[in-house]
């Protein structure tokens, strides 16, 4: 007899929505509350994994056609590039020209790059976590 997963499937759909909402919350709250890119990313990943668990790889892949290795790489790339750009902003000679007066603006800039950096972290985490779990599951 084939087991049917109707209960699981329906609950999963609701649960994943909750998880993703929560993840976004965690991610955004990171700067002022516990959370941040890493946790946010991991909880997104756990939501995705829940999808894979409840359904199967083929189904999920058809609906979310993403190569998660690339997601990871793009995540790191984003983090690095924001790092690089903020380094250029943080250069003393740039700073001396504008930073002296525009300290609030400078602060704002910092904030933006930090969030962008966190996006990178989150993407990297999502990509890696899903890649690992999928790789293993696909084998054997």
């Amino acid at each position: 007899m084939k087991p049917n997963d109707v209960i699981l499937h329906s609950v999963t759909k609701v649960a994943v929505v909750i998880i993703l909402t929560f993840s976004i919350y965690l991610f955004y709250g990171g700067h002022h509350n516990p959370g941040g890119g890493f946790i946010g990313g991991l909880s997104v990943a756990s939501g995705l994994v829940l999808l894979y668990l409840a359904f199967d790889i083929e189904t999920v892949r058809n609906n979310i056609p993403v190569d998660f290795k690339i997601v990871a790489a793009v995540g790191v790339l984003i983090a690095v590039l924001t790092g690089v750009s903020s380094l250029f902003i943080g250069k003393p000679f740039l700073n001396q020209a504008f930073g002296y007066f525009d300290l609030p603006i400078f602060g704002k800039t910092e904030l933006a790059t930090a969030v962008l950096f966190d996006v990178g972290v989150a993407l990297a985490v999502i990509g890696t976590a899903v890649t690992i779990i999928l790789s293993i599951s696909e084998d054997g």
Partner: protein
Amino acid sequence: MSWLYLMIFIPFIFAIFVPFIYKLFGTRIHTGWFVFFAPLAVFLYLLKYIPMISKGESVHSKLAWMPSLGINFTTNIDGLALIFGLLITGVGALVVLYSIYYMSKEREALHNFYVYMLLFMGAMLGLVLSDNILVLYVFWELTSISSFLLIAYWYQRKGSRNGAQKSMLITIFGGLAMLAGLIMLSMMTDTYSIREILSKVDLITSHSLFIPAMILILLGAFTKSAQFPFSIWLPDAMEAPTPISAYLHSATMVKAGIYLVARFTSVFGGSAEWFWIVSSIGLITLIYGSINAVNQKDLKGLLAYSTISQLGLIMSLLGVGSASIYFGYGDESSVYAFAVLAAMFHLINHSTFKGSLFMVVGIIDHETGTRDIRRLGGLISLMPISFTITVIGSFSMAGLPPFNGFLSKEMFFTSMITVIESPVFGMESIGLLFPIIAWVASIFTFIYCMILVFKTFLGKHRPEKLDKVAHEAPIGMLIPPMILAFLVIVIFFFPNVVSEYFLQPALIAVLPGFAAAGGIDVEISAWHGWNTELFMTIGVIVLGAFMYYYLRKWSRIYSYYPQVLTLNNFYNQLLAGMEKLSSKLTKQYMTGFVRDYLVYIFTFMIALLGCSLWLSKGFSFNATNDAPINLFEGGAIVAMLIAALTVVFSKSRITAIIAVGALGYLVSLFFVIFRAPDLALTQLVVETVTAALFLLCFYHLPELRKEKSKVPFKVVNLLISLGVGVIVTLIALSVNNHRLFESISYFYEDSYTLAGAKNIVNAILVDFRGLDTMLEILVLSIAGLGVYTLIKLQLAGREKK
């Protein structure tokens, strides 16, 4: 400005072009003809220095190599260097000429041959001409290497390879010892220049490193000059083509050690240690070589041992001569200085007669196909010119007139008698041994010289035992030995020309004390009246002839000497033993079990940290500053202990995994207790994912087995793990009581103003220490890639196909 250093480079530059020339002309024109010009040019160039040098001057020039380190390519040519330089290039030119006929241009890889040879020649020139000890070392090792290549020229033969290896190991060993000695010298004097070192001799003699430096440098010299007990490489080096043997063992390689000893005589000479070591090793080598030479069946082997013996002779002369420095400048010192003169003289003579002999042996080998004394005989009628050359060379070596060997042999006896007549360094009693050993060794020398001449050329000719039909060699091949034989005779008749132009300047170079006087006042002549030396020579001839006549009777003694006790056997055993022992030792601890490695590592850690903590009294314990602990936390700790112990004792894998998961959850509980919400969150998620991974993977892993291991194994494990735990705890406790500074974290508490973030930890992660995080996610992504490739790329299965 002199272009002297360029002379050293000429062989090297030629060496670069040789392969091209070989490729271009190959079998049409013998490559040797091109190579011939290199040594010839240098020889002619060096001749130009004779007048200047004979006045006692020296020339030096400098080419910057590493000026900021004081390592420069400084060349210095004085009497000593000039003798060597001329020998190297002169004999070198002759050897190249000889090799043109000896080495077949069709069959042999001539480009290799000549490249090695030129490398060697250049290295030797550099060795004797350089003033910088490090540069000297560079060339020293280069001679070892190039001779290694030369000896193994026929690399297909096992004998060649072994001989080459032996010579390389021994000479490079010596080279390394010498390097250590030279470094010590440079430390004492703070310079790398030999001339400056010589000017700071008093700094050296009073230094505590004097003896070590001396012994180390002597080790270098002895190995290179094949002194006892390092002589074993030399006979094996006879595997090389004969031109090479002629070159290496008559004029160059082995003389490098002599050069070194002569060069540093004025530094170390005058001390009893130097005198004793150099002269006694020389004498031992002398007698060891001559006795062994008699027993040789191979003509080249015989010459090899004779070379060893003759080098011992020169070495002992230098040793005796060093006493001159002890006396300063004066009559007594000139008596000893005479020995140095004799050494230089014999050095030249040896090069001439030994060079010619090697070449003749090569001719015999080339024309008859064998060098075995037992198969040869009666060649006199077939090879008359070779015979004549052999007679000249051998008789000179045996110390008979009218050949130059006679003169230097007489001088050798004179020097040895000097030791008794004006004793130093406690020679009074034991000094008598010197002339006796010299005399006995000379008898054996005489015998093997006779063997060389008579066994080969006289007696019955037995063509059936030869591989080829014997006949006289082509004239081109005979010219080089003829030139050398001619020199043997010329020097006998004009020794004082040699003395004036070469020996006296060399003496000054060795013993700078005589520079003012322009050398010592000595007239070398064949006839001194009926003195002790002459009687000794007559005794040598009489007794030698007698013993040669009855050679067959008494030579059986040799066979009683146990093979086990030979130096060669010792060397082989040493090598084999070293390999075997190394293998045994390495396999003992490199078991391939990672557990063993971990045991070593942990044991080392426990021992080191434990000792350090104990010896440095670093341990301290004080719990008064501790944060309070409450029941709940205590319970959590207990729970943790239980979970951890469960992992150890569980028999099922799932229990173990779950217990570790529980442990992880408890850790995150601790993070909550210790006010680390971010950590708790992360730890929770990570722990769950890890547990999931364990689950995913371990489905395939087998069920945990009960550890089937012996009790001692477990006890060791237990002891080590306890040790690790205890050490970690002890250091943690001490550190806790040893907080010396306030943490830098106070800075981060301003994170809102600094980074606009209220979550300090997050601010640290993405801002203050963003680089860490960036690299951390890189690590994570790489791990992801790794997992992916591990699963997807499986070359292992394909190996089978």
